[in-house]
């Protein structure tokens, strides 16, 4: 008991800033650290993988459906005889890039709408929250399918289509944080000293509202990756790039002969999203002051 106390007070002395404290807390969460390491490996793999393993994912290198490990192809070949390992490595880029950029788009929309609603209140809040509810009613996947089908399946369009339907949770969280923080004394003080509304919103309130937004953003990257996988599974993807969902979609007719062509890319999606959600959970614990006090 005594040991723990001294250990705690030492740690409190060492940790100087809130972010350092959160990092200390995060490091003690083994699952979250494991997630972070896995994510790091996948990111490095997607950046440097194609240099180390230069096989073109579109090249037909061998006979179709050569099982994993045989003929020198670690993951085997798909229905067109393409190297599955090369496809999975190249697919990582698309999944990660779209996941990240779609999350950024939706965080940008969500934070803007939530901040305006929570800060100005009144009829602005009323209108913006009705818009948010409207987007909650739209079946997200169908709506982005429509956007991609109407405006073309380029990576940019897919990113926009995902971002435009996934911002509602961020908007709600940002709004409720703004509603809470705008009444706090230091905000009142800044307001009284004549700080402009824009400065108040984005310079003073937003930094203090960040912790729950960061947690939600982390989880959002995961769901954007799942979303992209779903779209490309259905064939709504740029035909000039390989993505994990698209490998599953194009091989699924052949699961009887070659189930590995579906299971392997699926494991890639699963592990990536799992790592992201572990990191998200860890961030949630580390950034939640109630838990930190324990």
């Amino acid at each position: 008991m005594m040991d723990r106390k001294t250990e705690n007070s030492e740690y409190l002395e060492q940790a100087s800033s809130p972010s350092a404290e959160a990092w200390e807390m995060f490091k003690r969460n083994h699952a979250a650290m494991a997630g972070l390491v896995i994510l790091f490996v996948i990111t490095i793999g997607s950046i440097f993988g194609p240099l180390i393993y230069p096989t073109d994912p579109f090249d037909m290198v061998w006979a179709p459906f050569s099982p994993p490990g045989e003929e020198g192809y670690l993951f085997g070949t798909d229905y067109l005889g393409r190297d599955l390992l090369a496809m999975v490595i190249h697919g990582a880029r698309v999944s990660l890039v779209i996941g990240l950029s779609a999350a950024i788009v939706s965080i940008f929309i969500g934070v803007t709408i939530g901040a305006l609603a929570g800060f100005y209140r009144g009829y602005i809040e009323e209108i913006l929250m009705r818009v948010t509810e409207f987007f909650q009613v739209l079946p997200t996947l169908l709506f982005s399918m429509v956007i991609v089908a109407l405006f073309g399946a380029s990576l940019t369009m897919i990113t926009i289509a995902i971002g435009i339907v996934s911002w509602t949770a961020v908007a709600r969280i940002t709004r409720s944080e703004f509603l809470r923080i705008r009444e706090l004394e230091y905000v009142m003080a800044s307001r009284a000293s004549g700080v402009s509304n824009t400065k108040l919103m984005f310079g003073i309130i937003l930094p203090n509202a960040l912790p729950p937004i960061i947690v939600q953003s982390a989880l959002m990257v995961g769901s954007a990756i799942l979303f992209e996988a779903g779209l490309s599974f259905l064939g709504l993807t740029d035909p000039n790039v390989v993505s994990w969902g698209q490998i599953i979609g194009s091989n699924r007719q052949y699961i009887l002969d070659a189930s590995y062509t579906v299971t392997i890319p699926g494991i890639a999606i699963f592990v990536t999203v799992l790592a992201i959600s572990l990191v998200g959970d860890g961030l949630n614990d580390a950034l939640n002051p109630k838990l930190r006090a324990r």
Partner: protein
Amino acid sequence: MKTFGLIVNRLVYAFVLLFAVLVLNFTLMHMAPGDVADTISQSMGGADEELLIEIRKDYGLDQPYYQQLVTYIGKVLRFDLGHSFFFNEPVSKLVLERVPATLLLVITAQILALLLGVVLGVYSARKPNGILSHFVTLFALFGYSAPVFWTGILLLIAFSLQIPLFPVAGMRDVTIEGNFWVHAIDVMKHMVLPVLTLASIFLALYSRLARATMIETLGTDFVRTARAKGLPERQVVYKHALRNSLSPVVTLAGLQFSAVVSGAVLVEAVFSWPGLGTLAFQSIIARDTPTILGILFFSALVVIIGNLLTDLALRFVDPRVGASK
């Protein structure tokens, strides 16, 4: 009387939402490159400029945006969602035929996920460090991280191809003859895998929340009072604590309705379930815009009805909701 007023209120709101979906639908279609005239001329193998102008005139495409919008909404109010060029049938007929299959899948999966989720949540909350509790945590992580179509394919490989317990695809076996019950059992057999797949994501979500709220409720004063009165543990857990933990889970389930419909699209694609999702998939490949927009409209309707039902269920589960108003 109060409930009646509420229903009217919610219905009006539902209509406003549907109207907004229509406007959005039409605007998207208007903004997209290419129009009906292009599609028709393509299917005819090309047409000259004069014919294109004539087609546009026939379909009212030469009129300004707002006028076309009014015409469109007027048509929808008369249940005319346009004509599908690909299936060569009215869109409303095409879509309405598919709605029951999707509703069956979505509602069964939601109810299953809610019931099982609450049961798992309650059991694991009673022993927060037990095996079941860890299982719920792990299962929740799996449900959140696995792409639903992949889960579906894995179940298909395991329980239709390796161990042939369930049919591979579709909703019914057309060769089967017999009375209503024979058909009902046949449909149920076809339903097992799609419903399990779709429920798996939401089961994870609900059990995790049910576990958290139940742990919180079990620590409150009124539960301690109930125990101190000497009530049997069963009654304390299921009558006192459970009722007070249900409403957050039901609220979450209501918010998830649009996600369930989205999930259904993917699950239907995996199991060739003859619902809106499969239709959407086919019409997107065929670039059949009127059908796609009709599906979007009807699936928004499904979500709105789902939300309405959740609202009413919430009042039933927790009488405090709306009592203060």
